[in-house]
């Protein structure tokens, strides 16, 4: 019982007040045979209304799983996720429909996330048609087919597919990757959601196109004021797009704070290595040495620190005890016994 209270206090680092989304001790285990993979391992995170948090980490760190559980496309094995105060796991019926309206997702691959047999109009209009009644109630306006067409065209204009009218009856095959991703953004925003998960939305795009999509996302975020979880392995863009950043390593958040602080002064040894590995235009210098991470050392369900096996500052304690996220300076949290 006493143990329980200690745990409780540890998980309430993030305030419940004014948070639109709250992760408390969320764990997701994928089982394959006898092996248990901890995709999420006791994750705590909160997101304020209008705030954007970037989740960064390498492949396999659990960042996509985090995004999927946030919009209820995956159920966590343990822990609680609250969206606007209600427990996401218990949302059912018409409440679930409302939840789906308010939470949207933009996927990585614009070639497979859009149905090739649907016109751009049908793709973007579908959420409106499904939620016709409640949108009519919300906006106090009848959604005639003309009105839906008008709204879709206007949204396409907003995402930079202009004139929107000219795109309505095209099929995705006529569009480039960047244009498809804009369609995906339009589809996510057409219901005016309060929360969006963008899972590597630019990683399949060329550099110049990716810059356009990033410009677009930050413009739209200002205009529509939604909260966003931006998932990316690209640290530089993650910092550019969000004011907050969480670094994940093997299912755990090991560092969290203002993007500027985390990228300029990383305190967790893992974040430090990750940030130093980002290629810069200045090129590599003579001091640059390879830091290798021993990925094979991981077998799931780690007792101590997930990074202990490759950490240059490791002590005995790191193997024995799990470091919890602790505030190291205002707003900057690190899960490490020996921060850099």
């Amino acid at each position, binding site marked *: 019982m006493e143990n329980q209270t200690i745990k409780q206090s540890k998980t309430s680092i993030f305030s419940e007040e004014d948070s639109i989304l709250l992760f408390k001790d969320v764990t997701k285990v994928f089982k394959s045979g006898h092996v248990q993979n901890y995709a999420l391992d006791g994750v705590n995170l909160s997101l304020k209304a209008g705030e954007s948090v970037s989740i960064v980490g*390498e*492949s396999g760190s659990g960042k996509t799983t985090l995004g999927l559980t946030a919009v209820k496309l995956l159920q966590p094995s343990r822990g609680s996720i609250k969206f606007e105060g209600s427990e996401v796991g218990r949302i059912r019926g018409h409440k679930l429909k409302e939840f789906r309206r308010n939470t949207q997702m933009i996927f990585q691959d614009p070639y497979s996330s859009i149905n090739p047999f649907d016109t751009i109009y049908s793709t973007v209009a579908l959420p409106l048609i499904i939620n016709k009644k409640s949108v009519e109630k919300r906006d106090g306006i009848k959604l005639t087919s003309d009105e839906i067409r008008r709204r879709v065209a206007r949204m396409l204009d907003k995402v930079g597919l*202009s004139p929107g009218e000219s795109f309505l009856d095209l099929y995705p095959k006529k569009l*480039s990757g960047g244009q498809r991703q804009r369609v995906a953004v339009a589809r996510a925003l057409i219901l005016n959601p309060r929360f969006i998960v963008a899972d590597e939305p630019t990683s399949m795009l*060329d*550099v*110049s*196109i*990716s*810059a*356009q999509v*990033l*410009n677009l996302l*930050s413009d739209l975020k200002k205009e529509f004021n939604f909260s966003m979880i931006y998932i990316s*392995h*690209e*640290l*530089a*863009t993650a*910092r*550019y797009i969000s*004011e907050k950043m969480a670094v994940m390593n093997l299912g755990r958040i090991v560092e969290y704070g203002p*993007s*500027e602080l985390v*990228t*300029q002064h990383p305190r967790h040894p893992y974040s430090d*290595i*990750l*940030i130093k*590995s*980002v*290629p*810069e*235009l*200045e*090129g*590599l210098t003579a001091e*640059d*040495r*390879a*830091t*290798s*991470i021993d*990925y*094979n050392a991981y077998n799931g369900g780690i007792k101590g620190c997930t990074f202990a096996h490759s950490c240059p500052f490791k002590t005995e304690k790191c193997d024995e005890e799990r470091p919890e996220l602790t505030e190291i300076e205002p707003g900057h949290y690190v899960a490490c016994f020996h921060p850099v």
Partner: protein
Amino acid sequence: MSENILTVTDLVTLYKAESKEVRAIRDLNFEVRKGETIALVGESGSGKSTLGLSILRLIEPPNEISQGKMIFNDHDGEVSILDLSLPEIRKFRWKKISMVFQSAMNVLNPVMRIEDQFIETFEAHNIEGDYSERINHYLELAGLGSKVRRLYPHELSGGMKQRVCIALALSCEPELLIADEPTTALDVVVQKEVLLELNKLKTNLHLSIIFITHDLRVAASVADRIGIFYAGRLVELGPRERIISNPRHPYSKLLLSSIITTNTPRGKKLATLSGSPPDLSVEIKGCSFYARCPVRVDSCLSYNLERISVEKDHFAECIRAKEELDVSTAALNAKEVN
């Protein structure tokens, strides 16, 4: 004796489909110097991978290399790659020029142990001697232990597989290595390891490398010279520092300004490219970047694509290359007018 290991002249590669002919490489001229890494940077569809395949003559019919010359020159003398017979080119590949492909996962044979993949390569190229010692040597060169030999590809991580591919590509002691997006599928930490490894190998083995990538930052990490690819041509080529700090072609400038680094001010609007690359199945008059260029002038349409030299060893295919143009601002303004 020439100082160039490879000289490409007027190369044209065509992709043929039904009624169309796409000129993926359009009258390309460039050379690779001995012991240098030349990075070719371009976006998808710019023809950079086609160039790699063309050099190794891996272009399959009906597609063809319709024109041009490629001279490979090493201590054994000059070889005209396009004049080699089929058995000759088979011998030539890997022994003189080898390649590392983008997705290491799909290159290795999943049902063969790593060491058997080496032995197969050695046998195909009539290499004699102690295979075992040789395998250890090249695995070690690529930063892998000899433990890896007995493993199957699925037992290796992405970075390790890419290293095996590099080791395989080096195993017949080529003079020139073509690395086509060798780190694109890798995480940043592993990417840096592989890039450092390549730099080391270049110095230790006196290797020449053609490094193909879409990422200017990666190019900056490995290259001595950087070439910017657009619509099947090199629109700019020069020493690394020059291209990064003082690019002269509007396309290079925009490509550079759309890159986000950890120092890009948050909330700063990125200058981007509007429009899409030209259709390469129709003839292009003048500069191929004309339609998307924020600083175009009428005379661009009659430009004969003569290379404008802006400094020693640095040229751009742009008639305004010598002018001081603020392309980013022009691009941002152009957008507001729309």
